[in-house]
């Protein structure tokens, strides 16, 4: 561990006033509860960050103090005591189950329904650490070397802050500034981990990048920060999350993802989120308050968001695109499934700034049980967005008469040559379709899964192949118990 006496001294130098009890905590590798400038200095020191980084964090923290938690989203949750949270906890290797026999059979059943190979099941259940699996390590190491040879930088963000400060300093906060919103600002102050990706000019990244291969960083913290830069003419596809249910002791997650696409660059960002949604009453589930934004900075650049959201008790998430470069393209494909007492308020923002920018939004919401779901989106055509185009389609499917589905789009056009089209529908599963499937011998649940998959097909097709297959199964599993 690097928490040496030196670090402590550095910290003392920085803060000037250091309490004795605090030092003990450093050795315990967990910061005391609460958020303060001391905690931020502590985090920054533990990450061995340069001075500018600490300054930025502190600026964010001071701004955060002036902000109020947003209440406009159609979600309700108990008041969060931000002073009752550990903002730093060093990843520890915990005592996991010894073999799959000790793992919750319900979890194993889900894994097998998803078609996850046995070795991967062991990793997911925590029986073995990723780095203990020979295959994975070798695969990951091989890939890492291959990527590095090509000039791709793919590493934890804390490493990038130390190793590539010029890139980080230039781009961090350039899409989501530290003043952006309550949760993003908090993230700026306290983020501890996340990925950094830089694709050099003209390179088409030969493989899908995924946190899965970023070994040693499996325990991503609750305040994740991701920064992806695609330099001129490059192309990258990034995968976040996995279909397997993930349990996490941290209830509050406030991540920030920033994407930057320069001239002719393309970024495809796919997310499958299946965090613990809580029990049937929604107790104990994860709160996922994420700020994701991409800037199509260069001409002809393209950013594509695809998300499959099935988990979390409360989701608050609006992956957005700033279409700055002429002819740039933004896309948002989303499937959100809520069941039981889950609540999701999700959507996107497409800000058309450059000429001939185009955006496409396809959102499919499925609400079942007593869940509540909202699509909230903004399409803005600025006066200079000559010839810009947007097409938005959001469809909601209601399963059962106790759930809610809402659509709240904002459309603002200040350029006559810009064309905006928005359509939205809400309905339930057609009795005819269901009847047809049932009389063909499918069970009620299979029929619903089939119909819902058809409903989402347009979005699921945009996922990378290996994700798409699992996501289809996930759709069915998420709706279990919602019918009949």
């Amino acid at each position, binding site marked *: 561990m690097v928490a040496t006496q030196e670090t402590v001294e550095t910290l003392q130098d920085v803060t000037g006033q250091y309490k004795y009890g605090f030092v003990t905590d450093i050795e315990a590798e967990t910061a005391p509860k609460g958020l303060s400038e001391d905690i931020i200095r502590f985090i920054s020191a533990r990450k061995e960050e340069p001075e500018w980084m600490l300054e930025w964090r502190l600026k964010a923290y001071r701004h955060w103090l002036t902000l109020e938690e947003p209440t406009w989203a159609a979600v309700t949750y108990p008041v969060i005591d931000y002073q009752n949270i550990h903002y730093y906890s060093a990843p520890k290797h915990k005592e996991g189950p010894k073999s799959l026999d000790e793992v919750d059979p319900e979890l194993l059943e889900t894994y097998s329904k998803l078609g996850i190979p046995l070795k991967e099941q062991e990793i997911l259940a925590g029986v073995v650490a990723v780095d203990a699996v020979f295959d994975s390590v070798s695969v990951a190491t091989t890939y890492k070397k291959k990527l590095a040879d090509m000039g791709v930088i793919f590493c934890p963000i804390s490493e990038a802050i130390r190793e590539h400060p010029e890139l980080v300093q230039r781009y961090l906060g350039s899409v989501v500034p530290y003043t952006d919103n309550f949760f993003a600002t908090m993230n700026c102050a306290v983020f501890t981990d996340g990925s950094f990706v830089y694709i050099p000019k003209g390179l088409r990244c030969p493989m899908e990048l995924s946190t899965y291969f970023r070994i040693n960083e499996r325990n991503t913290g609750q305040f994740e920060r991701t920064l992806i830069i695609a330099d001129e003419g490059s192309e990258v596809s990034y995968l976040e999350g996995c279909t397997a249910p993930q349990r996490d002791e941290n209830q509050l997650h406030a991540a920030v993802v920033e994407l930057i696409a320069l001239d002719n660059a393309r970024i495809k960002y796919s997310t499958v989120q299946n965090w613990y949604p809580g029990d049937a009453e929604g107790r104990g589930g994860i709160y996922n308050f994420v700020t994701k934004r991409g800037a199509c900075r260069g001409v002809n650049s393209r950013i594509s968001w695809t998300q499959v959201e099935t988990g979390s008790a409360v989701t608050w998430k609006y992956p957005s695109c700033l279409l700055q470069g002429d002819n740039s393209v933004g896309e948002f494909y989303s499937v959100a499934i809520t069941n039981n007492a889950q609540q999701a308020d999700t959507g996107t923002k497409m800000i058309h700034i450059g000429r001939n920018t185009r955006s496409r939004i396809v959102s499919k919401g499925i609400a079942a049980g007593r869940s509540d779901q909202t699509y909230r989106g903004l399409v803005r055509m600025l006066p200079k967005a000559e010839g810009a185009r947007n097409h938005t389609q959001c469809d909601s499917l209601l*399963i059962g008469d106790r759930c809610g589905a809402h659509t709240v789009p904002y*459309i603002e056009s200040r350029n006559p040559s810009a064309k905006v089209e928005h359509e939205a529908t809400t309905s339930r599963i057609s009795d005819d379709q269901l009847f047809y499937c049932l009389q063909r011998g499918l069970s009620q649940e299979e029929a619903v899964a089939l119909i819902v998959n058809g409903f989402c097909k347009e979005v699921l097709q945009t996922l990378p192949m290996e994700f798409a297959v699992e996501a289809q199964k996930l759709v069915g599993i998420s709706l279990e118990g919602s019918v009949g």
Partner: protein
Amino acid sequence: MTATPVAAATPFLDPETRAEGGGWLGAVRQAGLDGYRRQGFPTPRHEAWKYTNLSAVGRLAVETPPAVPALTAADLPGDRLLPLDVPRLVFVNGRFSAPLSDLDRLPAGVRAGSLRAVLLTDPGHLRPVLERPQAQEAVATLPLAALNTGFLSDGLVLEIDAGVSVEGPLHIIHLSVPGESATLAHPRGLIRLGAGARATLAVSYSGLPGAPSVINAVTDVVLGEDAHLSHVRLLAEAPEGVHIGAVLATVGARARYDAFTLTLGGRLVRNEIRVLLDGEGAQAHVNGAYAARKGQHIDNTVFVDHAVPNAKSSQLFKGVLDETGRGVFQGKILVRRDAQGTDGQQLHQALLLTPGAEVDIKPELQIYADDVACSHGATAGEMDAEALFYLQSRGIDEETARALLVEAFLEDALTTVADEAVRDALTERVRDWQRGRAQATWNV
């Protein structure tokens, strides 16, 4: 009286009417003032006022409108919606004008006149209208409707007995005659149709150019079972005029409310229509068209509340934005928990003619029942170049072709007005607008 900023809302209640009406009416007014004070004057921080900034209106120092000058029927605007042989009620600066009105032609079973007169003689029978849940909700959620309730003193009362079917439209004219400085009026309309009654209303709001007239109108519409009201309104205020209006319609079982609003005039217009579908089989069709040019701001905000099963609603709005005109459309369909079998549709289309024009659209669905068919659509864009080219290739000059396409675009919505005479009059007003004569051209 000294001028007071609109937002300060010092109650210049009419002392004569305030004393009347007994405890309940005083309580209704007090609730209105309390509702306003609680919510405050709208700012863009209020989600419902995100796109319509009233701060300039709020700072405007206003007085109560001047006493109505002596007018005769010959002074009525020349470009009326309907000819003079139609029964009409005329209001000047929010006050009923008996000499300008023609109540003799009112058919049997129809009672119409001034709210002020009813408040002085028999206010009790208006109590169910003013105290119904929808009116109370408006006081709690619409700050300016609450303010109107606080100042409730004059306006229209129209009651149609059960089973009475009124042939032909009734004409209601609101005129604003500006004073020395800006004025503020709070006209209130109460329209009640008994079970099975039918009627068409053609309502116009217009004003003389001059110091700004701020109209803060509220119209209550209560439709009994199987009643059918076609409520057509033309908002053509003077160039400096500000019109903030709310219609609160409660629609009974199997009743039908058809609303149409054509907005052409006024510097700033907020046309808010709230419909409560209150009985099974109720229907509401809330449509409208608008055209805004330099410096104009036109906001249509619609809320349809499907509170019961098997009700049906539709909305169609079309807007044309020219020069620096700005259009706002906020439409919301709420389907409550047990409102199964709901059919709710909504469409808003905007045509932007020039750079500098702006449209902001917020179509919203809030749905808590599953057996529903709800949809909304919204588009914004410029004139179809191919259609323009087609017309030009047929030998029509560009100017005319553009005018034709604008008219055709708005006509889509205008065709939903069932009464032919009223529809033709509206089409004529659209043509006037195209010729650049949106405001009323009448003499006092």
